[in-house]
């Protein structure tokens, strides 16, 4: 597990929402960054419902302060607070999510997975984020299934990163009834959900990478996946038509 901690950092408590001083070491602690209060509330709830501890901040700068990476706030100190993942909006005033990503990846906390959220489905943007080391790229509005999948993928017991890190863009067909008790996606002919080895080069069962495109040729072609009426792919298609 990626357990890069924020050690010995003190910070001005009133600057951050959702303090979590008593962190259960088994719980995943996520730092969510978004300038929109509506979105912060939603992502916070999404993460809490998937049993994560959440800290929300409204800017990249605050995020860096929280992590202790802000040069100006070098006296920051908070014992025992570890950030297991950062999830950030792309479009933010001041520091964008992309810039935040670069800063984190260029720091001593580069091992912390960073997920980017964006309302714009721009391939170039997605690619550049991945190139900078983003773990994943979620299209807004973020859904419970996205967060569940993210958590399962990144923090499952026998998770192992595969060489071919295929990016997940919520393209997989889902059943229209989003059943919270079923964190995994509905089976479809092209996706191997079983624990037997799939055609994907993933070593352990139950890892999410085996759920990603089994058709590796469609990596960069967002819209080629088969879509059911309520699938994310269809949503993406429709959205691009909207605009």
């Amino acid at each position, binding site marked *: 597990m990626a357990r890069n901690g924020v050690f010995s950092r003190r910070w001005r408590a009133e600057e951050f929402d959702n303090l979590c001083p008593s962190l259960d070491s088994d719980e995943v602690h996520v730092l969510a960054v978004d300038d929109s209060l509506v979105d912060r509330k939603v992502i916070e709830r999404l993460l809490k419902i998937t049993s994560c501890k959440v800290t929300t901040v409204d800017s990249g700068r605050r995020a860096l302060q929280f992590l202790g990476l802000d040069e100006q706030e070098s006296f920051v100190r908070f014992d025992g607070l570890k950030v297991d993942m950062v999830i950030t909006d792309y479009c933010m005033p001041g520091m964008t999510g992309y810039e935040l990503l670069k800063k984190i990846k260029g720091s001593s906390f580069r091992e912390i997975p960073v997920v980017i959220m964006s309302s714009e489905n721009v391939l170039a943007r997605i690619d550049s984020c991945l190139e900078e080391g983003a773990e994943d790229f979620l299209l807004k509005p973020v859904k419970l299934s996205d967060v569940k999948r993210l958590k399962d993928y990144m923090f499952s017991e026998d998770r192992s990163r595969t060489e071919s890190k295929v990016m997940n863009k919520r393209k997989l067909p889902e059943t229209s009834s989003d059943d*919270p008790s079923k964190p995994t996606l509905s089976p479809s002919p092209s996706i191997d959900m079983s624990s037997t080895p799939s055609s994907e080069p993933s070593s352990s069962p139950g890892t999410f990478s085996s759920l990603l495109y089994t058709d590796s040729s469609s990596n960069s072609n967002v819209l080629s996946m088969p879509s059911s009426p309520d699938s994310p792919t269809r949503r993406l298609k429709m959205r691009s038509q909207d605009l």
Partner: protein
Amino acid sequence: MLGLGVERLRADMNRLLALLFHQGVLDEQYLQLQQLQDESSPNFVSEVVNIYFQESEKLLRNLRFLLMDREFSDYKKMGVHLNQFIGSSSSIGAKRVRNVCVAFRVASEQNNRLGCLRALELLEHEYCYLKNKLHELFQFRATDRAAKTASSCSQVPSSALKQSALSAAKQKRKEMR
């Protein structure tokens, strides 16, 4: 009697919700928000929506203010506000509002003042409609909850077994009507 009232209330509420979906006012993201509501966070939807209302009204004021300047309209700033509006609208499932914002943004990118004015008017109209309907929905929920609380209170028998059996029988008769 109380049982019937609650059912009718729920039917009306569902009908309104279905209508809003049918009209494209709301989309599945709204349902997603409802899914996030439970006993630990029983007012989640209305909390988020109220934040959305506050933010939206600020944005609408800003947009109107920016357009009122006849000499020079800061289209870039308008675009920033619209991006925020688009984002928050899509996060709560306010589909029609979002779509109008998108069209508005196009007009602002073209420095098209007339187009922007038209879009703003339409946006204000759509926003008002959305707000009214969501308030109606929340009103349904509030009444529904009050009714639920009231009915559960009347079902609690006060003392002896005899009395509880009697009231249980009465309740059964009520439900059978």
